[in-house]
């Protein structure tokens, strides 16, 4: 059975300032809130022309693109954060591996980096077990300066970030220094004996005694 359509609204109500207004018409006059068409355009992969009434129809080959695009939009925020964290971890790991010290069979600390000379000094020249010069040239120079050079130091070198202790020289190694009143710096230790011959020293002594 078919109901006549559209059916006139039998229910009328007095609304507003005395006018006879149909409830049905009043309700119909309200415009429901719709969807965000800009967002739909973006998710569907339409071009800007869609908003001006010129929709770009999606062909069958672009169906996959629509899905990828909508998914990538949903995941863009979270994936950027995760990607950044993974990148930072990977960079840390590479730095750690490049400078990591390991003990060899003799129990001595073997510096993994090829630019550290056996005497413990940082050297620009490649060491014995260094890779080929061609390979060496590809390494950044900044890495060399961050390498631990103290063979006694067993702190884990982390490229100067956490292994800063190894970059300092121990106080015993440093000669005592004092500052003169003139602002200059001189050593507090007695100067080493001058390499002067005995006759000359005697002549100098006599000269001093004479002047005093």
């Amino acid at each position, binding site marked *: 059975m078919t109901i006549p359509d559209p059916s006139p609204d039998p229910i009328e109500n007095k609304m507003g300032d005395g006018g006879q207004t149909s409830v049905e018409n009043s309700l119909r006059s*309200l415009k429901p809130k719709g969807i965000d*068409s800009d967002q739909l355009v973006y998710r569907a992969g339409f071009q800007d022309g869609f908003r001006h009434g010129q929709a770009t*129809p999606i062909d069958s080959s672009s169906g996959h693109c629509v899905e990828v695009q909508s998914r990538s939009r949903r995941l863009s925020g979270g994936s950027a954060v995760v990607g950044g964290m993974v990148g930072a971890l990977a960079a840390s790991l590479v730095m750690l591996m490049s400078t990591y010290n390991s003990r060899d069979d003799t129990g001595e600390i073997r510096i993994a980096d090829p630019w550290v000379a056996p005497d413990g000094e940082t050297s620009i020249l490649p060491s014995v077990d260094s890779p080929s010069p061609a390979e060496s040239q590809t390494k950044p120079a900044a890495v060399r300066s961050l390498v631990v050079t103290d063979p006694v130091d067993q702190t884990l070198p982390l490229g100067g970030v956490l292994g800063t202790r190894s970059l300092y020289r121990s106080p015993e190694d440093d000669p005592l220094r004092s500052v003169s009143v003139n602002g200059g710096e001189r050593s507090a230790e007695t100067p080493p004996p001058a390499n002067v011959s005995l006759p000359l020293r005697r002549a100098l002594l006599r000269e001093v005694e004479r002047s005093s």
Partner: protein
Amino acid sequence: MQPEGNSTPRFEYSNLVRDLGPGLTLLARQWCDVPEDVVQDAFLKLFRQTPFPENPRAWMFKVVRRDALNAARSQSRRKKHEQISRDERTNWFCDSIDESLDGELATRALMSQPVPIREILVLRLWNELSFDEIAELAGISPRTASRRYQSGLQAVRSQLNIKLEEFTRG
């Protein structure tokens, strides 16, 4: 206009979205608290349909109704939605100074009705479906659809009278 596969005329999609979007959103809002998402997803599904449905309008109503009901099945979400609906001032309609009826009043009047009645009111008033179409969609007879519509409209009118009296008094 009968679309052939995805070679739909260029103006078809925009017309569909503009004409059906608001009414479908209001329909989905009767069940779930994410009506915009449901309608957007339904449009995207429609755009990807191969071949394109013979009657995209009827197809959209079916999909939106089904997806909105599925979205509402999450009990916690529904409870949360009802809680928010009770506590907050809700307006399902666009603000306009031309309207003779306040959107918030109409929203509250509609919300006071049971969902089966509300659904028919929304389908009839804001989506302009015939009783036959409503009956097919809701799985009821056209006579039942008509009866529910009339009783729902009567109840809403009463609600609006009460609300308007309160409004003019206060």
